[in-house]
């Protein structure tokens, strides 16, 4: 039991049933009656918890109906609250009145699972990820849906938010963007140079990942998890593995845990390096882009030499890691970090002392602390807006419990803050890798995982470089995959971008967008 679950237990008494097949024990899964689902949210809101995720489950092959699960988080506590909803009346009380991000989660649940939120304040039943040209009754996450069928296209129209008035105009952008980036659509309403409103429309890269998991074995699933968002392959594979290991009640050997952490921090450094350069480039300071991409490339090459893959795909596997690190490898990493730390500080001095760059990044794209909290943002986006959230600190797994990362939280909430958080994190990740390597345990790098028991479920969170990643895995009646729920940090952080650009000028949008750099693929699944 934790603080959150005690509150639910106190309010619901015998009506709150703790599911026994759910792991880890520190994250309880409580089933409550459907009509109490919103009351639970009110209670959680009062307790100061955020809504980390919300998703639907089809349990019809397990002799039940559908269910909706809400995941709340408060400091180190996570709690899953579940309510069942029958096949003949697949509705559930909406949580949007209490939690803003719920409207996105619920649109997704309604679009892909066909469970309808009721009492919705915005009455926003527009499909999400599902496009208007899908048949209305195509609910891919339902068990009856055949994923192999080719979907017909139907006629339909998406209703955009509109602004009217003299001098108001609209800028549609995408899905094919100008640069080498992922597809998505942005619809701006602007007046002169000022952005009045931005509406994102995502879903273009929806590949049916969650459904695909159900056709794969637990072992093969990790390859798919590693391709949910290519730039976060280590973090996603790790989160999948940790959820699966929780489900099987298994802890990998210590050496594997340490190596996983080394890989995770290397991924963090590489992405932060690339993004700092890219932000500078969008402020027309190409010099830093080329300098930082030189540093990033050096890291990627060492990854390839030591671990066999530039982005470390498929190196984290259920039960441990796929590749060991020889003593020469440790030396190589330490030497590289010494070089990197020196080069990095030279560039950061240049970033910091450049007034024209400062003029662009300071006070641009402000996401206020209140909004960052209310929208449920996570990761560096949240930390740049005053939210002290970092799973590595709040719910650490080894070796982070022995070597706590130092969490930087800034309050200027602008593009600069989002860059500067990454600067601090690169420095800290360099320190962490040095500590991990100095204490690297001996022994095996992986062990055989026991088979999952039927109907069990497992939960895990991992702080990737973008922020908190959530996985919830559920075994079916025969022990196979019944459901794999993924919540990438992008699912919530995209909401932050829509708000951060308001009142900014249109030419600053690329800069704001780059400072968030959220994943389309991780969101669309």
């Amino acid at each position, binding site marked *: 039991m934790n603080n959150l679950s005690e509150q639910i237990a106190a309010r619901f008494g015998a009506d709150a049933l703790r599911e026994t097949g759910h792991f880890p024990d520190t994250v309880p899964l409580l089933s409550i009656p459907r009509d109490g689902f919103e009351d639970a949210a009110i209670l959680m809101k009062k307790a100061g918890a955020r809504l980390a995720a919300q998703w639907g489950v089809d349990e019809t092959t397990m002799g039940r109906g559908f269910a909706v699960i809400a995941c709340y988080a408060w400091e180190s506590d996570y709690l899953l609250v579940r309510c069942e909803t029958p096949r003949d009346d697949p509705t559930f009380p909406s949580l949007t009145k209490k939690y803003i991000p719920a409207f996105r989660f619920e649109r997704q649940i309604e679009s892909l699972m066909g469970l309808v939120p009721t009492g919705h304040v915005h009455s926003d039943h527009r499909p999400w990820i599902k*496009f208007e040209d*899908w048949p209305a009754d*195509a609910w*891919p996450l339902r068990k009856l*849906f*055949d*994923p*192999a*069928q*080719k*979907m017909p296209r139907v006629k339909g129209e998406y209703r955009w938010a509109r602004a009217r008035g003299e001098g108001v105009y609209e800028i549609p952008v995408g*899905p*094919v963007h*100008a*640069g*080498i*980036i*992922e*597809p998505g659509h942005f619809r701006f309403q602007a007046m002169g140079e000022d952005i009045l409103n931005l509406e994102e429309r995502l*879903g*273009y*890269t*929806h*590949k*049916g*990942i969650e*459904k*695909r998991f159900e056709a794969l074995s637990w072992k093969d699933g990790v*390859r*798919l998890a590693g*391709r*949910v*968002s*290519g*730039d976060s*392959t280590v973090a996603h594979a790790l989160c999948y593995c940790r959820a699966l290991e929780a489900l099987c009640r298994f802890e990998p050997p210590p050496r594997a845990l340490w190596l996983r952490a080394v890989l995770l921090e290397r991924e963090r450094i590489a992405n932060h390096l*690339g993004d700092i350069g890219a932000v500078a480039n969008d402020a027309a300071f190409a*010099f830093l882009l*080329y*300098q930082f*991409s*030189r540093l*990033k*490339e050096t890291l*990627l*090459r060492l990854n*390839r030499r030591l671990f066999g893959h*530039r*982005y470390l*795909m498929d190196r984290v596997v259920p039960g441990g890691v796929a590749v060991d690190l020889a003593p020469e490898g440790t030396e190589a990493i330490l030497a590289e970090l010494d070089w990197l730390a020196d080069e990095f500080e*030279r*560039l950061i*001095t*240049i970033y910091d*002392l*450049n007034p024209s760059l400062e003029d662009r990044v300071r006070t641009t794209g402000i996401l206020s602390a209140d909004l960052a909290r209310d929208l449920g943002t996570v990761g560096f986006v949240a930390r740049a807006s005053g939210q002290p959230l970092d799973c590595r600190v709040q719910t650490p797994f080894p070796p982070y419990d022995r070597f706590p990362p130092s969490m930087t939280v800034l309050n200027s909430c602008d593009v600069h803050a989002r860059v500067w958080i990454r600067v601090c994190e690169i420095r800290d990740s360099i320190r962490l890798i040095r500590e991990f390597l100095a204490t690297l345990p001996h022994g095996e790098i992986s062990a055989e995982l026991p088979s999952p028991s039927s109907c069990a479920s497992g939960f895990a969170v991992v702080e990737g470089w973008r922020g908190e990643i959530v996985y919830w895995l559920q075994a079916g009646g025969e022990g196979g995959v019944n459901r794999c729920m993924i919540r990438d940090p992008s699912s919530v952080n995209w909401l932050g971008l829509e708000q951060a650009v308001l009142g900014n000028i249109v030419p600053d949008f690329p800069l704001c967008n780059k400072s968030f750099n959220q*994943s*389309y*693929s991780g969101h*669309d699944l």
Partner: protein
Amino acid sequence: MLRILHQIFRTGVVTEPLPEQVEAEVIMVGKRLEEAIRKRFSRSLVIREVDAGSCNGCELEIIAMNNPIYNCERFGISFTASPRFADMLLVTGPVSHNMEIALKRTYDATPDPKLVVAVGDCGINGGIFGESYASRGGVGSVIPVDAVIPGCPPAPADLLAGILAVVTAGNQ
């Protein structure tokens, strides 16, 4: 400003000193690429990159091809924002159901003659995403493909070699 100049001079030209085997590969491929591009594309091959639902891994490597170490511009390769200016489409991803129309439109907007290269394992056959309600299972099932570059994701040197193969293919 002095700091910037100092950093530029102490960095020097990083395009040159590559590890030998990569260096040899990139320079060899690059030389032939440059020649082919000079002859067949009036010295400049203009590429429009289209992400048709990739995991963004391939994008990372295509961006890396533009970094100062690979510096693909030295061989005459540049990337454009508009398909109207493109000689080649570099398409990644298994082609999601939701990107199919946008990909077709981009293809139609690219003037003839044009080359289409499918990048990455999922661009070839859908990779781990396979073929499903949401995935077309490869670029070739939506638009005509001239060449493929396998890999998950293909490294920058593989991308350069793949582009070379397609621009010289018609010569033999």
